[in-house]
């Protein structure tokens, strides 16, 4: 069972908060409210020396927009990246994901794919181990990503539900940071899509948390929301000190649990 943090509830709260604003007010910059809901009155410093956000200026497919939060600090020493927040200001649930990292991550760079519902600022905010907040912003042009119909046939998506795939991008060297992509087969329904047969809204059904361990060590914990694309993809790093097993536990918004593990060693 994964420990569930309170932060994940911020997203529905934000939806409610934004929905309550009068139409005219929606045109205003939503970031101050989002920022307050997520971080209270804590200051967010310019993060350009801590992280970089790589996102396309114009998305080719609004339902699958690749984004990378690139770490500019090593995960060692006195100050390392503890969490990364990815916020898509204009999305119905602006908080796309929170990534909890540790020195065992080796490198805090995270790559994922998100839905973008309209032209929006995207904020990446890093919290460092000494408690500082550092933000960077990029504007992304895209529209319709949250209501776009599922890429896959619904029957096919449910048949493959929870299947996972791990793709390692670098070879195994004991003690060296290793990069891997985790793919989780899940329709990640947003609640804003129409059922193909009934024409009713499909209820939201999405990956809510992902816990990655190497042996007993926690590598990465992800709290996610409807903005992650169908078949969520997370690319991350970890440091295998010895041969071992990388295990992943996923929980979705309907309390389904999925687990999978892969051996890591010279052959992987």
């Amino acid at each position: 069972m994964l420990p569930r943090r309170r932060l994940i509830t911020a997203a529905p709260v934000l939806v409610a908060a934004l929905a309550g604003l009068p139409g005219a007010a929606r045109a205003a910059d939503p970031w101050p409210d989002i920022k307050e809901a997520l971080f209270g009155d804590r200051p967010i410093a310019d993060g350009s020396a801590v992280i970089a956000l790589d996102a396309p200026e114009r998305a080719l497919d609004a339902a699958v927009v690749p984004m990378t939060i690139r770490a500019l600090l090593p995960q060692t020493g006195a100050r390392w990246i503890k969490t990364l927040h990815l916020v898509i200001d204009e999305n119905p649930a602006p908080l796309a994901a929170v990534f909890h990292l540790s020195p065992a991550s080796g490198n805090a760079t995270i790559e994922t794919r998100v839905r973008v519902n309209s032209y929006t600022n995207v904020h990446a905010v890093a919290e460092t181990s000494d408690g500082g907040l550092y933000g960077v912003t990029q504007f992304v042009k895209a529209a319709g990503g949250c209501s776009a119909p599922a890429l896959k046939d619904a029957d096919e998506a449910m048949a493959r539900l929870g299947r996972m795939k791990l793709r390692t991008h670098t070879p195994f060297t004991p003690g060296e940071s290793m990069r891997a992509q985790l793919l989780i087969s899940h329709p990640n329904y947003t609640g804003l899509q129409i059922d193909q047969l009934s024409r009713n809204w499909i209820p939201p059904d999405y990956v809510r948390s992902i816990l990655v361990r190497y042996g007993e060590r926690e590598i990465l914990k992800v709290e996610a929301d409807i903005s992650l694309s169908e078949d969520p993809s997370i690319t991350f790093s970890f440091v295998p000190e010895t041969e071992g097993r990388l295990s992943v536990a996923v929980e979705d918004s309907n309390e389904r649990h999925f687990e999978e593990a892969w051996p890591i060693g010279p052959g992987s």
Partner: protein
Amino acid sequence: MTRLLPAAFSVLAMVAPPAMAQALAVEEVAPGVFVHAGVHEEFTAANEGAIANLAFVVGEEMVAVIDSGGSLREGRRLRETVAAHTDLPVRWVIATHAHPDHLFGHAAFAGDGARFAGHQRLPREVASKGPLYLDSMTRLLGAASAGTELVAPDVTVPVGAPLDIDLGGRVLRLQAWPTAHTAADLTALDLESGTLFAGDLLFMERLPVVDGSLTGWLDVMTELAALPAERVVPGHGPAQAAWPDALAPQRAYLEALRDSVRKAIAQGMPLGRAAEEIPLPAGQSWLLVDENHPRNVIASYTELEWE
């Protein structure tokens, strides 16, 4: 043509006058088989959505229309065109798939006793994606979109169970395919003349668009090639071409796309970089590449990374 791009709003949309239903230019590619070749453009107010190839087949008793156009206006023009060539009624309106440039003219034939045929999965394709397509085309066409509405098929064809429809002394064989260009592709074969109406299972000149399954499409092309046809009417391209030779350029593109995306995945090249960096295969020449090729890379990548 697939997912309509959220392109810039054209001022032309505001000022386009309501057009009279003027006949479309058609070519008679075989006796009783007429084809209108669409222009190689995205939807604009000026082209009124008339970008796909449309056809009609005249039997002894009735007419079948294969794809109706990208707007009610184009559908009406097609209807006028049919009337200019025969007094027989249009009794069948066949959709090769759910994309808006192929079935947004359907409403022009509603209410006259025509039946609307399509793939078994077409109703849900229309239900799920139709409203988005309609929003996009309304935005892109402005006044030229007037009256366009979604018409779901009332006769559906399952995969593996072709349906023969008799136009009077002339049979059209409707065949539904597994997911390829889209999840609901259907072909029509005129047994009389050996003319295959491939819909967007065959793009010529204009870059193919992957909106279903890249590997599925390649498999379906192999099956298609075995159909006993002399000529094909592609969904986009010339009014007719020799069968099955016409498949070659599309096969070359899709195979090269598959191979280069597989290689990128194997090398650990991330999706975003693959979309930016995988070029159009060398030696190939297609129209409307700029946005469509990178989108094909994304669609192929998210399919092939599960292999």
